[in-house]
């Protein structure tokens, strides 16, 4: 699905990623854990194509294409999705309209017909149920006036509608209470499939109690310094990140 090789990247002239390697295959769920400032959000943003990050060397190959050559919208059309840590409020832009525009732009890119308006509404209502999103949210402006938990739920709802091949969840658990976390995680679990992959970026082990990863990576100072299975997350919880750095 995606192969990241020796990735070096700077933000405002400061090197944040220092030779990161990662391979994620279809059907897998990966967790990338690490302390604050390790480069977790930088990695998500670079994969999604945000401005302000400079890749100085290395490569990202996605479905055998050079991901770094694509615009953010092309990445979306090709199946990359980022669930934002801090989803932005967009007053005046309707939630459903945005998704329909996104779905149809993707279809156009793939040479398909536009989605039928009624089929689209059926799809959207069905997907809203997965994350227990009240249908009234569909008619509201994107994230406007949503609580922290509602914003995160809306991200997973959008993911459900856009059906990405590769979903990046950036600190999706932050700011969620236990009930909201269970709903969001439940939504993600329903979207797991053998032809898609999920990468969770998280500071805490908590989310992994609900979404079980196949692989856990420790990101520290711009590199992945250790990879294991879900038990690694538990060890991290117990011993802290310094333990990995020392045992490296």
């Amino acid at each position: 699905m995606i192969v990241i090789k020796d990735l070096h990247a700077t933000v405002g002239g400061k090197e944040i990623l220092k030779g990161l390697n990662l391979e994620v295959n279809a059907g897998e769920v990966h967790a990338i854990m690490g302390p604050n400032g390790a480069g977790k959000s930088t990695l998500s943003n670079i994969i999604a194509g945000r401005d302000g990050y400079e890749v100085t060397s290395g490569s990202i190959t996605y479905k055998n294409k050079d991901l770094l050559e694509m615009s953010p919208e092309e990445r979306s059309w090709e199946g990359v999705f980022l669930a934002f840590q801090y989803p932005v409020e967009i007053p005046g832009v309707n939630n459903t309209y945005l998704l329909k525009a996104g779905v149809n732009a993707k279809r156009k890119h793939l040479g398909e017909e536009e989605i039928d308006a009624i089929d689209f509404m059926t799809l959207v209502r069905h997907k809203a149920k997965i994350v227990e999103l009240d249908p009234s949210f569909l008619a509201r402006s994107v994230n406007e006036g949503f609580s922290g938990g509602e914003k995160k739920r809306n991200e997973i709802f959008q993911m459900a509608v856009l059906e990405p091949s590769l979903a990046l969840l950036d600190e999706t658990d932050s700011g969620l209470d236990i009930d909201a976390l269970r709903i969001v995680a439940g939504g993600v679990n329903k979207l797991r499939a053998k032809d898609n992959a999920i990468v969770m970026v998280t500071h805490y082990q908590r989310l992994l109690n609900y979404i079980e990863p196949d692989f856990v990576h420790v990101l520290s100072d711009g590199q992945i310094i250790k990879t294991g299975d879900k038990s690694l997350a538990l060890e991290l919880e117990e011993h802290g990140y310094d333990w990995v750095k020392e045992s490296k």
Partner: protein
Amino acid sequence: MNQVTQTRKNALSLFEQTGLPTTSNEHWKYTDISRIEPLLAESVEEHVSIDASAYVINDLDAYRLIFVNGILDEEQSELPQSISVLSLAALAHSVSDEESEQLAKLFEVSGDEPLFNGLTALNAATASDGATVCLADNAVLDKPLYILHLSNQNNVIRHGVMLGNNAQAEIIEHFVGLDDARVLSNISTNVILKDSANLAHYRLQQEGLKQSHIARVEVKQMRDSSYTLHAVELGGLLSRADIVVNLSEIGAHCDLNGLFVLDGRQHVDHHTRIDHKAPHCSSRENYRTVLDGRSHGVFNGKVVVYEGAVKTDSAQSNGNLLLSKHAEIDTKPELEIYNDDVKCAHGATVGQLDDKQLFYLRSRGVSAETAQELLTFAFADEVLTSMGNNTIRRFIEKAAFAKLPHSDDLKELLD
């Protein structure tokens, strides 16, 4: 000589003393009307008859007053039975001495009024016609009153609106240019709202791109009355509006919403003035401008809170989006407060589109171009959401949308 004629004569003398405003006047610093001065000398030409049906807002269920080049066209108008809507020209000819005294008040101008200038006096002196709308106490206008102004000649119009205690009305003023004539409109709308009266007032300026538009809206509000203005500027080469609201008795409330969507070399200047003269009054003001090409917007919003106006609650905001590096906005929110017991907020922003919002939309598959257009439209549309009349809102959205950069992808937004 009856009272009306005398009052208008006084207005003419006042104009002759004052002359036209120049850029050395602080309130006219950014708006140079020397280029429209020659238009003032041109007299009204021959009467033209025009079929208004091509210009009216079609699906609007409303009473209609159609003015063509400054004269009411009764044939094409449809007046309500229950209330008094009279052509000013007809009224001035037929009134008794006593009525004349009343009507004369509509033509009184004083050099001491906020934002007074020579054009204010000139309007009172030379207006050819206008609507006088009077609602008795407790009267509710069952349909909006739609006033369409068509012009390809100079026109000077003076409207008077008086709502009695508890009366309610919705008035839509629509200005449309008939062709590319280089002409001037000078429009004055004078409103008095008695206790608990409620007026929703729309002003939609869509004149021709060589026309100049000078407007003054003066509102006097009594106890617990409520006034809402939606002022939308899309047309014209040069447009200037002075909006003066006097919250003169306890509990009065006003809302001023403004939207400019400009391109080319359009120049639009709004000066608003809200006087909080009594306790427990509130005011809200929200102006947005979207400026493309070499257009120039000016917003000056002044709120004055008088000494006795305790518990005043006032908020003002002005957002400006510059789509071109040659577009210009001059914005100045002003606040003068003469007592301590008030809640006042004001602010202005000038900028381009938000990078975070753009990236968010693109990450969901919306192309960069469409994302920019979508955010621009949303920015402009935000100020329209408070409109109570959906037909008008849709009409304005479509007209504004047509002026904004847009691709086919976005059309669905308005379906």
